[in-house]
């Protein structure tokens, strides 16, 4: 604004000034950390803080996949858990949410209440949801114990059930949000399609199979990509429920990274893991952008 004698300079600089605040943040908290994660993943930290780290190429990555290495011994299982968690929760949540959306998109008494019932878990902090489930899963005094009686398994403490129990919490909390996205998608389906189909003698099931589901394809693609992205970043429940245990059986990649932040000697591996996690997330977000790019350009 001091450039009044030369207004054209101000005019030319203006767009950059307008986007500058956003870009400072994007630079500091997205660009810079992404580049430094990639660069630092090729270095090994020195034993003493004042020495400079040494370049090791891809050694950190190789170590992650080496079962004899102290991190590698754990990484393989944790990566597998992360993929299981991502695919397992998304592949259950999505059809379930579609079913709920179809059920609730009808003439119903007290529809607001039932919709609230499905949606409210998505509004809770994940840590709040985890707190509720900590009670449900609690040994002997929990709700599950009251239901299953003497046969109640140790949900969070057993190696075979821990990951599954944590997945249940995620499914419970994410289905409602996904259902909302489906409900919104359903409002965009022209009603005359159903009327025409009904005139031709198509029953409800046929209408569902031949109209609703195919026309929701776009919504489904969108739902899948955001659900995967979210699943790979959500580890809050682990802090409250299992801390990744027993013996890493419910541990997930981002939580493992979090657990190792204080360990200077592991920084190289942490960066390599961050790059791998970032790459996994990027695959899903990028496919979301490529699939939906056309939609953005239309307007």
């Amino acid at each position, binding site marked *: 604004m001091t450039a009044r004698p030369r207004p054209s300079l101000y005019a*030319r600089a*203006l*767009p950059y000034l*307008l*986007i500058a*605040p*956003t*870009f400072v*943040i*994007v630079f500091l*908290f*997205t*660009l*810079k950390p992404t580049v430094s*994660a990639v660069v630092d993943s090729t270095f090994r930290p020195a034993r003493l803080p004042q020495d400079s780290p040494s370049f090791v190429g891809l050694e950190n990555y190789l170590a992650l996949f080496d079962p004899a290495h102290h991190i590698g011994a754990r990484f393989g299982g944790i990566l597998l858990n992360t993929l299981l968690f991502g695919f397992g929760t998304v592949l259950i949540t999505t059809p379930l949410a579609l079913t709920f959306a179809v*059920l609730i998109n*009808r003439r*119903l008494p007290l529809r607001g209440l039932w919709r*609230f*019932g*499905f*949606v409210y*878990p998505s*509004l*809770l*902090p994940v*840590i*709040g949801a*985890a*707190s*509720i489930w*900590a*009670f449900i899963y*609690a040994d002997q*005094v929990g*709700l599950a*114990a*009251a239901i299953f009686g003497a046969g109640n398994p140790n949900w969070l403490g057993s190696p075979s059930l821990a990951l599954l129990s944590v997945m249940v919490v995620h499914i*419970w909390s994410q*289905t409602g949000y996904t259902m*909302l996205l489906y409900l919104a998608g359903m*409002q965009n389906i022209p*009603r005359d399609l*159903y009327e025409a189909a009904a005139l031709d003698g198509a029953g*409800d099931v046929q209408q569902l199979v031949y109209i609703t589901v195919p026309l929701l394809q776009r919504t489904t693609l*969108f739902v899948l990509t955001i659900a995967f*992205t979210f699943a790979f*970043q959500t580890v*809050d429940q682990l*802090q*409250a429920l299992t801390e990744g245990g027993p013996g890493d059986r419910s541990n997930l990649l*981002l939580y493992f990274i*979090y657990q190792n932040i204080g360990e200077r000697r592991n920084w190289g591996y942490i960066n390599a893991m*961050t790059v791998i996690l970032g790459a996994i*997330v990027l695959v899903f*977000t*990028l496919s979301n*952008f490529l699939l939906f790019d056309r939609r*953005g350009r239309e*307007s």
Partner: protein
Amino acid sequence: MTAYAGKRETTLASSLLTMITFAAAAVWLVPLIFTVLMSVRPPAEPVTQGGIFFGSAITWQNYTRAWEIAPWLTHYANSLIFVVGTLVVQFFTITTAGYAFARMRFFGRDVLLVVMLLQLMIPPGVLLVQNFATIRDLGLFDTHVAMMIPYWGSAFGVLLLRQAFRGIPLELDEAARMDGASVFQLLRHIYVPLSVPTYIAFAVVSVSSHWNEFLWPLLITQSENVRPLTVALNRLIRTADQGSLYSLLMAGTVLVIAPLSIVFIVFQRRFVESFASSGLK
């Protein structure tokens, strides 16, 4: 939200579907119902003792004890500062950037837009270690600003507003410019007032996601004076789990989840629309 399956549905099939809906929603509601019921049960009385629903007596003891355990008012205030402080700055940054990307031509615009979108592709939450180091380097560790600063620029918000601003007739813009209005006057008198629904949708998504945020505040804060509700709840979970104090924990959980749940119940329509529209754009 109109029902498409009207008269063709037989009464029997229809009421069967209604029953299924109620059953499914009931299953989803059970955790919430028992959270509330547990919170008014006498301490250390398991669900199997007394009536499964109302226990042997109804008591507010758990709430008074939970209230004493932590400085909740401070935590409420911290959560509030976090979400409001984030949102206010976001409104400024997304408005100016949204306008630049919607209505201005400048060298490198498209490249810069793609660069900005990286934030959506690699969310800051994934870059925990690096962002933790940045906060330390900036000397912000254990402050309110540390929690907010990564969100002060929002690619998602810029995209939403860019879309909204493009829908505003260009003639309005040009007429105001003829009268000598500056960009900031244009924004204030034309663009912002005409995009209120978009701001509301963005606010709903921003506030609810940051109100619920946990891992980032846990990592970059240390003292009670700064920590939000979610981090306080985490501490209560630790305490409760060791002593099997689940009635206490459920009371604490209600204290944490109540504010946003009440806001949601009151503005249910708004929430539903905001989530749906922001999601699909």
